[in-house]
Structure formats: structure tokens, C-alpha cells
């Protein structure tokens, strides 16, 4: 029943530790302007704006969509602000798509961003609350025990995470927008890097970046008139489960499995490794690649690490299912935008517009985002073909 919709314009900023040359509005604007230009459109050809970012405390601006109205040419238009923690970039793209898929709008702009250098992102996540133990040592401290449990269950060799860290940075070196540019990175360098939250090393962790990502999503008729090939949205899915409940499988969350099953069903995918050509998956700590390979059904449970070690997910090793050809979250992480970057990069691949990190002949790609304690998931599948 959903109307067809497609990504017709993509814009990003260069990702970097601190964008000292722009205001918050200037950062968001840059991505939006780039997306419009990519789509060959002008501000007055946009019907609505859908904005996403993670907690307002990163910038200390409450509900910044009100302040950003003018930067996004939204005066007199609908503006919606999504916040679903780290998955927000993906959720925002899905909410934007629903504006068109519902038949309500013909063409919308969606933007997500983080200018987390304005604060210290680690601080904002660690702000102590009364009556609780003040032991929050950042996201790494939360995810490290989960990774440890994965390593125990799967009996994966210790160097799988190191391999992912190297692979994604080599991918990132092909992407001029990536924050980390490390074409010379080695396994030894990653292995020797500081152990922050055992078993997570410094170089197995994502950086903290400023940046914004934007897309223009259009209805079927207008998508076909665009200057570049559209990326057709073939499936969208979101799932949430509570952060903590008795019996929750944090290593292989049910919400992720259900979300993947839903989006695959919509896109007609029965074997993701075979049917998809590449995937942009939210991997902020290296070990999350093998974990998500299993959670997303690319490998049987306990065997995701084998794909990683075989090079199946590597562009440089001619893998059959490249993961994060853009360099992924391990190469750039403006938190609120990171999910949308995954969705946008998946779209770039099927538009054949991904430059040096293009997966040859990519026709069908997965964009994936997760947030919170891995209890919020958003995914879409985009294709070069409508069906």
C-alpha cells in the first residue's frame, strides 16, 4: 500500500573533530545544500523538513529544530524532529520516507547532525544522576562486557576486532569525507593501541566527530525526473525493546533480528549475504561487525567472525559482501548523523555514485543503525531498481 519513494539527493559534510569555521546552523546547512545540489533542486521545491539528532545536551540547544528553521529553508513548512538515541539518523530517514510513502508529500528534505565538539560527548552521556552509582565510563564501558560475552560464546580469535578496525580505516581512506584518514594503518598498530575498556582498544573505537548528513526523498514520479539515478527505498523497519529486562540477550538482541527480518521481507531478501551487494552497518566498536553479521543473518550464530577473517566484508580483499565501504562509524562518528550516513551511503552505492569506495555493480544495499544499549534499531534496503 505504501507509495514508492526514492533518494534523489545526498549531501554530507566532511567529518572532523571540530568544525571551527561554522555555526550549528552553518554545519546543518552545508549538508542540506549539498543534498539539494545533488538533486538539482532549490529550497522552494522542498515540501517538508525532517530533522534528527541525538540528545540536545550535546550542543546545549533545546529542540534545535526551532532555531534551525531558517537555515533549512523551512519557514512556512512542516518540520519534524526525531530522537531515538544513536539510531536516530536511521529513524529520521525512515520518518522522512514515510512523509512520501504515505502519499502526503512529494519531496522532503531530511537532515541529521551532531556538533558534539560544542560539548564533550562523553560528558553528556556520563552526567551523574542522584541516587545512582557513578560508574558510567562512556559508551565503551557499557558495550565492552557485551563484547566479552560474544567472544566467550563464539570462541572467536582475539584478532577479529583488530581486523575490522584495520579494514574499516582502509575503507575510510578511500572516502574523502571520512574523519579518520589512515591508509597506512596496520594490525600491529591497532593491537598495540591503548586498551581503553578491555577488550576494546583505542583504535577499535569510533572517533568523536562533527558533521551532518542530508537526503532528499521524492515520490515515484519526481524521482524519475532527477538528474542522477534514484535509490529506490525497498523496505524500512524499526524495532525497540527495553534497555534492561530479565533474560534480555544483549549480544544478539531480538529487536535487531526482528527488524532485519521485517526489512528483508519487504525487500524480498531471503539470504542477505547472497541477495545484498553491500551493507552500511552501525559498528562503533570493531567487534560489533561479527556480532551484527550474526544478528542480521549474514552468518549463522557464532560464525560472524569467520566472514570478517575471510575478508568477505572487505573491499580491499574483494569480499563478496563489503561492509561499511565508506569507512563506517569507526572512521566518522557525528552521533546524531551516523545512522543517516549509513542509510545515505547505502543509497550512494546503488546509485553507483560512491567514488573510490564504490562496490562494483551494487544494486541492492542495506543501511543499518542502532542506538541506546542496542535496544533501538532502524534499517532500510535501497535498490537501483524499483522492484
Amino acid at each position, binding site marked *: 500500500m505504501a507509495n514508492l519513494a526514492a533518494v534523489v539527493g545526498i549531501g554530507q559534510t566532511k567529518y572532523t573533530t571540530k568544525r571551527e569555521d*561554522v555555526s550549528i546552523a552553518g554545519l546543518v546547512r552545508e549538508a542540506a545544500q549539498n543534498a539539494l545540489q545533488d538533486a538539482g533542486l532549490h529550497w522552494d521545491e522542498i515540501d517538508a523538513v525532517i530533522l534528527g539528532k541525538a540528545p540536545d545536551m550535546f550542543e546545549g540547544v533545546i529542540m534545535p529544530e526551532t532555531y534551525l528553521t531558517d537555515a533549512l529553508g523551512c519557514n512556512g513548512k512542516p518540520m519534524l524532529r526525531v530522537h531515538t538515541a544513536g539510531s536516530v539518523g536511521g529513524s529520521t530517514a525512515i520518518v522522512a520516507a514515510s512523509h512520501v510513502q504515505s502519499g502526503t508529500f512529494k519531496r522532503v528534505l531530511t537532515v541529521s547532525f551532531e556538533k558534539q565538539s*560544542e560539548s564533550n560527548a562523553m560528558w553528556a552521556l556520563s552526567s551523574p544522576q542522584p541516587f545512582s552509582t557513578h560508574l558510567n565510563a562512556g559508551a565503551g564501558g557499557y558495550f565492552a562486557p557485551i563484547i566479552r560475552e560474544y567472544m566467550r560464546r563464539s570462541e572467536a580469535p582475539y584478532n577479529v576486532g583488530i581486523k575490522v578496525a584495520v579494514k574499516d580505516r582502509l575503507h575510510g581512506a578511500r572516502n574523502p569525507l571520512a574523519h579518520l584518514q589512515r591508509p597506512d594503518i596496520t594490525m600491529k598498530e591497532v593491537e598495540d593501541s591503548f586498551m581503553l575498556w578491555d577488550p576494546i582498544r583505542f583504535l577499535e573505537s569510533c572517533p568523536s566527530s562533527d558533521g551532518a548528513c542530508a537526503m532528499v526523498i521524492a515520490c515515484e514520479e519526481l524521482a524519475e525526473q532527477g538528474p542522477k539515478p534514484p535509490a529506490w527505498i525497498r523496505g524500512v523497519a524499526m524495532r525497540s525493546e527495553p534497555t534492561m529486562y530479565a533474560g534480555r540477550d544483549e549480544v544478539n538482541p531480538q529487536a535487531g533480528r526482528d527488524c532485519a527480518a521485517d526489512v528483508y521481507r519487504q525487500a524480498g531478501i531471503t539470504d542477505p549475504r547472497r541477495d545484498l551487494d553491500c551493507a552500511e552497518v552501525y559498528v562503533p566498536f570493531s567487534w560489533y561487525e561479527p556480532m551484527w553479521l550474526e544478528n542480521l543473518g549474514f552468518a549463522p550464530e557464532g560464525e560472524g567472525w569467520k566472514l570478517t577473517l575471510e575478508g568477505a566484508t572487505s573491499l580491499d580483499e574483494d569480499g563478496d559482501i563489503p561492509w561499511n565501504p565508506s569507512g563506517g562509524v569507526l572512521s566518522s562518528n557525528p552521533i546524531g548523523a551516523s545512522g543517516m550516513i549509513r542509510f545515505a551511503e547505502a543509497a550512494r552505492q546503488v546509485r553507483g555514485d560512491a567514488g573510490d569506495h564504490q562496490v562494483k555493480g551494487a544494486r541492492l544495499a542495506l543501511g543499518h543503525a542502532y542506538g541506546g544499549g542496542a535496544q533501538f534499531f532502524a534499517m532500510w534496503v535501497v535498490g537501483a531498481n524499483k522492484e
Partner: protein
Amino acid sequence: MPESDSESEILNQAFELGYTYTRSTGPVVGRFLTGLRERQVVGNRGSDGRVIVPPMEYDPGTAEALSEFVDVSEEGEVVSWAWVKHPREAHPSDQPFAWAMIRLDGADVPMVHWVQANREADINTGSRVRVRWAEETTGSINDIAGFELV
């Protein structure tokens, strides 16, 4: 220390959510704040020709980036105002004062700032006011330490 009204009922504890943000301004906001540091108020021209103070980065009507800067006067007229009888701790004055929309001479769009006045009866719509500069200007909106009645 926590306060407990009665055992296992309401447990309250005060806390402060605080951080000093480091904002980069970009060229337009930066130009305005640089002007304030030099004790000069700067606006810019919108797509419709109106002079906007403080300058906006993007025009609300056309969404175009705005760049034509215009110096305006540090004196102007109160367009609207609100009398704060009981200033809040966060407010810039601990004495009663007025928030005001002030159209500076040479500008078309009023800006929001505060006006020092002894009594509510001293201020009116149409009152003339002038910038009172902070003793030390650093490049911040608070370089304007309020306006004073002329």
C-alpha cells in the same frame, strides 16, 4: 544530601546539569560578535532589503545565505517590552528591569535585549534607549550590558 519526607516515600536530591559549551560562530555570527567587541553594532541586509540586527545567517523568506553587513546605531526605540518585577537568578539584572524588543536606528528588524530602568513607569513603547557597553568587551551578546533610557 537527600531529603526523605517519610521513609520510602519521596526521595529528592538537588543536582546541577551544567557544562560550558564551546561554540564556533561561523562568519555571520562571528562578524556581529566581533563588532560588539569593538563596541559597534552590525546588522545585515535581508533579501527584501530590510536591515536585520543581529545579522541572520539565512534569510527567513528566501533561505538564501546573507552576507551584506551594515553598521547600525547603538541607539534605538523600544518596540515592545515586558517588566520583570522579580528577576530570576539566571536573569542579567538582580534589580527589576525590562526585556525589550529594540529597533536600532538604521535597522528595520528589532532585536531582543534588556533595558535598565528604575521603575516600570519610566519605560514606554517608543522609549529611546542606548547600548550600555560592558566594561570589558569580549565578543559576546553580553558585551551589551543592557540598554539604558536616553
